[in-house]
């Protein structure tokens, strides 16, 4: 099967040569023109209908419908959603990604990451912070007010600053973040700081209002997960050019909508292979338990798809404790396990504490099925009811069924089954 090896070599070559740069923040309807008309709501994960959506996903949809002026209140939004007035589509179908519920609608600002190696763009909304936020199903007045501030205040300031900067290169920033203890999914402390350090002089240069500047810098500086959404757009910009390589068994997307987990495989085009999503095992914030938790959710698994998150756990011993994955010394085991299911390692994204081992890169569905190890994902945990928000963080495995189904389909396409 030399043609598979050659195709996979091409896939990881494209991944490793990716050159993601954060260049702009624009309204989603500008980035994704299809959103300009109709009532399209982009969500995380593979396609799903309203009746199969989990509580936080429905809660976020109700909130974003009110935010866009498509409903008078949350009850009205729920009724209209159930009546089929909104068009639900995955972010992944529009070069976009979104964390947890992953709401993307026309007036929301999205960050634009350009992959200069392949000249493609990827989009992700601005991270809202922790606690009660829309990505975890939050939808009250405070959540919507924050979204409006992101749209009307922070986004234009960031856009002007990015234009003045000429763009912020992200590949080296992530490399530095790995050496500073980030794995870019549940820990983004270092990269959030590095981004703020690079962007803040330009924000100061373009700001016309010192109060707004101060509020913006405070918001960004106090959000340890600010970089998560940047990292996700980075992942999407790196993986989209890997799609549709004939004979390649490399995974190009992993994503979940709170009900289903889905993967896409390069040689199988844009077909989703789905299975029921799993429940994360993790630690809960005070006052919450596993009984409150919603199953796994979000497009953020795009960071694992490029070798970060659970795949880079060895770089981030602090995360192992935060997500309840064991002792700090166990972190390297996760990375070594993930190396077993990948084509290669990334020589530019290395882990000092593992003798500069490169992060595992290029998930091969053949290796996943053969070894019997499903990808490890670091994740936040949402409350299962709408409107409450994040209740913990943990680790979850991708369902093996996605990979066995994809393997059978791949073998059939190759005429081997």
């Amino acid at each position, binding site marked *: *099967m030399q043609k598979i090896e050659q195709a996979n070599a091409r896939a990881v070559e494209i991944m490793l040569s990716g050159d993601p740069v954060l260049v702009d923040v624009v309204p989603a309807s500008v980035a994704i023109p299809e959103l300009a008309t109709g009532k399209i709501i982009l969500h995380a994960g593979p396609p799903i209908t309203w009746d199969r959506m989990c509580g936080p996903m429905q809660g976020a949809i109700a909130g974003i419908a009110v935010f866009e002026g498509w409903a008078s209140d949350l009850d009205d939004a729920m009724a209209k959603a159930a009546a089929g007035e909104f068009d639900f589509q995955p972010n992944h179908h529009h070069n976009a990604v979104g964390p947890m519920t992953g709401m993307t609608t026309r007036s929301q600002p999205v960050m634009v990451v350009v992959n200069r190696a392949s000249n493609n763009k990827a989009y992700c909304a601005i991270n809202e912070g922790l606690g009660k936020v829309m990505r975890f199903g939050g939808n009250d007045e405070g959540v919507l007010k924050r979204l409006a501030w992101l749209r009307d205040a922070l986004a234009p300031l960031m856009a002007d600053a990015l234009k003045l900067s000429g763009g912020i290169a992200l590949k080296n920033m992530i490399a530095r973040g790995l050496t500073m203890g980030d794995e870019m999914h549940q820990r983004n402390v270092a990269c959030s700081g590095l981004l703020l350090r690079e962007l803040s002089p330009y924000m100061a240069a373009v700001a016309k209002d010192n109060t707004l500047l101060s509020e913006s810098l405070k918001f960004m500086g106090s959000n340890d997960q600010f970089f998560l959404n940047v990292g996700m757009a980075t992942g999407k910009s790196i993986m989209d050019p890997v799609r549709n390589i004939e004979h390649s068994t490399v995974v190009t997307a992993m994503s979940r909508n709170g009900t289903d987990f889905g993967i896409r495989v390069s040689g199988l085009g844009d077909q989703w292979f789905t299975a029921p999503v799993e429940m994360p095992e993790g630690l809960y914030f005070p006052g919450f338990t596993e009984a409150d938790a919603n199953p796994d959710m979000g497009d953020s698994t795009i960071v694992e798809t490029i070798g970060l998150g659970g795949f880079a756990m060895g770089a981030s011993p602090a995360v192992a404790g935060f997500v309840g994955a064991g002792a700090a010394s166990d972190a390297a085991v996760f990375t070594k396990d993930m190396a077993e299911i990948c084509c290669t390692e990334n020589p530019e994204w290395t882990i000092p504490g593992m003798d500069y081992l490169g992060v595992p890169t290029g998930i091969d569905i053949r290796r996943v*099925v053969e070894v*019997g190890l499903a990808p490890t994902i670091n994740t936040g945990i949402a409350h299962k009811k709408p409107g409450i928000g994040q209740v913990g963080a943990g680790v979850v495995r991708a369902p*093996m069924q996605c990979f066995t189904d994809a393997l059978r389909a791949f*073998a059939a396409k190759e005429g081997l089954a």
Partner: protein
Amino acid sequence: MRVKVIVYSGLNTNAIEGILNKPKVDESAEALFEQQLDVITIGLDGFSADLSAQQVPVTHVDWRPPAQGDPELADLLSKLGS
């Protein structure tokens, strides 16, 4: 390392002791077990852990049946060059 005995997954410590205590083994095998044993275990960690606990030198090989023992998937993997 000089290898004298390979213990495959499926043999546990009791089984090894059963071999060692078997009343009628041929002389060459008996001689083997009178020597210092260097053991390789394959599969479950518990095999090597049991032996280590008894101060038996052991090297563990991390191995799983391909495709978790599913013959159909193992056949497809073979055809796909994995």
